[in-house]
């Protein structure tokens, strides 16, 4: 009796275990296949280094890599924060005054149809080759999702709730800050996720165009010396920086869910 239960449990848990391991297995298989093929064919390291070579490059260039994190991460974070603050202020202003919204919003939306990445070289021309141009560009490309998403969020408040506020003789400002803004917070969080990714893209492209420091610069240097292993190592470091920022925002989003009472 007991035995049959155990064997049943085993039978049912085996596939679940397998399925939870599948992604890891696939990842591992691809890595080992990559390692093996490159080793077997003796493929030039400068074109496709083995995973182990990348790991080795990280180990060998640890100081170089870590010292280049700060220039990239700080500019991306700064750009993101400025974009969030300015974007938020603008969208609140537009939610408060329909005149401002009617005048500004179509222009903002129209402007954002132009692929913003194309402006990167102009920022170098305007703000120089120091960090200012990269900061400016990061703000520029990461501000749009905040404005667009927050404007949508502030507009999408439950109309009955607005009626309730009206019936309580609430002022426009009270309704905006006590009801519409908190209701739009989930929109802000999802916009921030997009925004931080774009700020990173902005800084990396900025570093490609002109820079003496940062992980993007390191990628170009490694490319110039055909040290592809170092290049991919820098990309991995960029991943880590992106993941770090992203997880902070994900945590904020989790706290927000709790605040909204959706999670205990």
């Amino acid at each position, binding site marked *: 009796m007991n035995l049959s239960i155990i064997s049943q449990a085993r039978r049912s848990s085996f596939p679940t275990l397998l399925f939870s391991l599948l992604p890891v297995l696939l990842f591992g298989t691809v890595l080992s296949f990559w390692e093996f093929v490159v080793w077997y064919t003796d493929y030039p390291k400068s074109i496709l280094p083995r995973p182990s070579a990348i790991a080795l490059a990280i180990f060998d260039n640890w100081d170089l890599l870590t010292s280049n994190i700060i220039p990239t991460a700080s500019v991306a974070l700064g750009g993101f924060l400025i974009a969030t603050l300015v974007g938020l202020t603008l969208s609140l202003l537009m939610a408060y005054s329909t005149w401002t919204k009617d005048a500004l919003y179509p222009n903002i939306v129209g402007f954002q149809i132009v692929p913003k990445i194309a402006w990167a070289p102009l920022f170098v021309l305007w703000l120089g080759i120091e960090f200012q141009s990269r900061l400016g560009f990061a703000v520029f490309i990461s501000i749009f999702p905040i404005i667009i998403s927050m404007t949508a969020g502030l507009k999408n408040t*439950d109309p*009955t*709730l607005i*009626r*309730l*506020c*009206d*019936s*309580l*003789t*609430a002022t426009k400002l*009270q309704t905006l800050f*006590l*009801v519409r803004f*908190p209701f739009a917070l989930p929109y802000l969080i999802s916009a921030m996720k997009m925004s931080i990714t774009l700020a990173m893209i902005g800084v990396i492209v900025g570093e490609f165009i002109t820079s003496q420091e940062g992980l993007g610069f390191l990628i170009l240097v490694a490319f110039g010396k055909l040290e592809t292993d170092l290049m991919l190592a820098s990309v991995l470091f960029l991943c880590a920086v992106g993941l770090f920022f992203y997880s902070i925002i994900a945590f904020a989003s989790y706290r927000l869910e709790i*605040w*909204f*009472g*959706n999670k*205990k």
Partner: protein
Amino acid sequence: MCDGLSMLDQATSRSDAYVHADGVQKIFNPGPKQTLAVDGIDCRVKEGEFVSLLGPSGCGKSTLLMMIAGLETPTKGGVFVGGAPMQKPREDIGLMFQDSTLLPWKSSIENVMFPIRILRRDRKEYEEKAKELLKRVGLDQFLDKKPAQLSGGMRQRVAICRALIYDPDVLLMDEPFSALDAITRDEMNQVLMNLWQDFKKTGLFVTHSIREAVFLSDRVLVMSARPGTIIEDLEVPFPRPRDFSLVETPEFNEICGYLRGKIDAQH
């Protein structure tokens, strides 16, 4: 002469009607594609009276209620509450919706205190009252719970407390229980009935449930659809306080049957 008469008429109506919709008409989207939502509505509610507006969906009951709340302006006619014409929302009128419209990030007690915050009244003065109200509706164990952790019926109880906290003279209710299941709905009717016994507000209750209307009201107004007009004005004679055994009596069912006939005659 004519003007004098209507002035006189208005003056008398003011004396006995606390809420008075006077020849109200509402047209949405004026123009070639306009909709006539309500037309020629005359409705009076005395002070302390509880009146239900009964009618099929889309007959303009809610529109009428919103005009009385000052959230919509009538195309023709006027609305008077407490003798003064309604032009914009006032603090002496409380409103309840079909949806509880609680703020999801606020606990029950904070939600009840929300009007106090909006009206910039003294928090301390009302905090005890808020707790008292929530206790009255049986939510003393749920003061710090957020709406997502409450059932639909509990949320509407919080919404009732929120409408009562700032002590409005008139309470307007727009199908407040129609999203609830039948059992909870009966429960909520009893809760409202008991609260009414103590607070003695002037009430206007929109519903499409005949039973609910008859059970709760002193008077039932039946509305027809498109355009909404009042086709029946019926006194409900049962003494207060009422409890749910009332709905089993033949007299109660006779009134319900009569009203059902009035509504069906519309089709």
